[in-house]
């Protein structure tokens, strides 16, 4: 497939925003159970939510560049019963709304108990956090399923796609939370840093698994099934036109195998190896610059990872567009 930069930015930006929100709320839940020191005021969560919201808005803006008719985008909420894209279109703004409210609740200190469970009392921030977490996971699933549900894009049609979107997004969000807490709440750096490393390692496992899986894939469609002629040797002599068409532009990436291989190693280093080293270094040396560099490296790596994700997918329609004439 041809990698669309709007979609690369959409998925990586909202992934980081979602991960950051998950990190903020995880921290709050730990503090709620007295496993972490509580924050004196809501500023840490409020500014964190603002950063998450900005990332989500950035993703949303990027997504509009993918549409031919952005002014009709509201129509895309119609078919949520059948289309994962439609579901994403509904869940993303809902999640953004909840993140916004979560930040507002923290900055305005809405701490009146809403729900009482035994000795525990939940205020608005905790309730909004639960809601936001559910929406956040739903959004990861919707985004990934847009790709994973297309069964003839065999590289994408796997539960590993969902795992990768979930873990890679969360990893970048937790790394960002580590860098952010180094400035805003230094007592949380160790907590976020360790989670960021754990999730990055988990993501490495699932991403490596999908690389191995895709390297061994055997395409189900062949020229034989594409034109229905049973013969071992078929070559296309003409695709029916001399210039390009949508079919030759949208589904071919036109990059050499060498570039693909290098991008694969680039993203493996930038998403996994380098951030892990920088996180370890940052935690031991308490240099906050290293932690910010970890996030930057990981985000850049994720751009390469997403590019590779698109380029690696082989669409069966390409069988019909092999030879100009």
């Amino acid at each position, binding site marked *: *497939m041809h990698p669309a930069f709007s979609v690369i930015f959409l998925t990586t930006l909202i992934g980081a925003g979602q991960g950051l929100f998950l990190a903020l709320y995880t921290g709050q839940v730990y503090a709620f159970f007295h496993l972490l020191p509580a924050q004196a005021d809501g500023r840490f969560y409020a500014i964190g939510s603002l950063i998450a919201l900005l990332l989500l808005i950035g993703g949303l803006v990027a997504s509009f560049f*993918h*549409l*031919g*008719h*952005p002014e*009709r*985008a509201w*129509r*895309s*909420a*119609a*078919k949520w019963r*059948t*289309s*994962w*894209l*439609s579901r994403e*279109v509904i869940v993303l703004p809902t999640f953004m709304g909840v993140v916004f409210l979560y930040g507002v609740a923290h900055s305005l200190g809405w701490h009146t108990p809403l729900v009482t469970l035994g000795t525990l009392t939940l205020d608005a921030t905790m309730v909004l956090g639960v809601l936001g977490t559910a929406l956040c996971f739903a959004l990861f699933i919707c985004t990934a399923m*847009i790709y994973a*549900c*297309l*069964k*003839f*894009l065999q590289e994408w049609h796997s539960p590993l796609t969902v795992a990768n979107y979930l873990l890679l997004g969360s990893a970048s969000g937790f790394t960002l939370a580590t860098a952010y807490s180094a400035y805003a709440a230094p007592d949380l750096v160790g907590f976020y840093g360790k989670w960021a490393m754990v999730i990055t390692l988990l993501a490495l496992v699932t991403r490596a698994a999908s690389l191995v899986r895709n390297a061994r894939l055997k395409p*189900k*469609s062949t*020229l034989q*099934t*594409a*034109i*229905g*002629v049973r*013969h071992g*040797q*078929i*070559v*296309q*002599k*003409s*695709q*029916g*036109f*001399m*210039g*390009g*068409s*949508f*079919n030759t532009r*949208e*589904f071919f990436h036109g990059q050499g195998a060498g570039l693909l291989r290098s991008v694969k190693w680039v993203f493996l280093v930038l998403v996994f190896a380098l951030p892990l080293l920088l996180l370890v270094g940052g935690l031991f040396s308490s240099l906050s610059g290293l932690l910010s560099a970890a996030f930057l490296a990981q985000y850049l790596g994720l751009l390469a990872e997403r590019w590779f994700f698109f380029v690696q997918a082989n*669409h*069966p*329609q*390409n069988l*019909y*567009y092999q030879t100009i004439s």
Partner: protein
Amino acid sequence: MTQLALVIDLNVCVGCHACVTSCKEWNTSGSAGAMSDDRPYGADPTGTFFNRVQTFEVGSFPNTETVHFPKSCLHCEEPPCVPVCPTGASYKRKEDGIVLVDYDKCIGCKYCSWACPYGAREIDEHQKVMKKCTLCVDRIYDLSLPEAERKPACVRACPTGARLFGDVHDSESAVSVAIRESGGYALMPEWGTKPSNHYLPRRKTQIRIHTDELMRADNPLKKERQLPQPDKSEPSLDDVTSW
């Protein structure tokens, strides 16, 4: 239920592209607006088409065969392109099974084209909406046309009659009979899309002859033996006819 579809006879198609040009002519002149082109007479022309004719070579020299292969939307019975459309712009009509795009609803997200394994959908780069074969839906029901002309433009244009059009759910229709009796098949059956359009394979008429069949071994009526020389005394044919 009706399912309109094309049946394309690869045994007959000569690859002349008449269906491609007639399709473009009819559909670019319709009320839905032009199918836009860029640099049509330039070095690198590109444009929107519903139908393409491709050519494949089967086998290796000297035992090769050229297969001309017209390809357009197959109006699948289980169209994977329809459920993924977020707006409902892509839909399959209940009454005749044609898969259509509502150009007023389409947001140009291209997701449906990713979901079609056949590459049958092309975005119009100027109108920014998805386009594909409509089976000439604005023509086949047009009562102002004589009945014989209420067929897709490509079917009418094909000089060799390689394209049949009809209801593949009616077992007695010409298309159903052709599929049944001439080995009609669907493209990429592995994805379960159940294409309605079918293709008829290349066919060769051959009989198998053994050498002993070249000379009749049994000849009960002795039809083929050398006739005996008539005796000189017998009347010859000349004698019979000349008296």
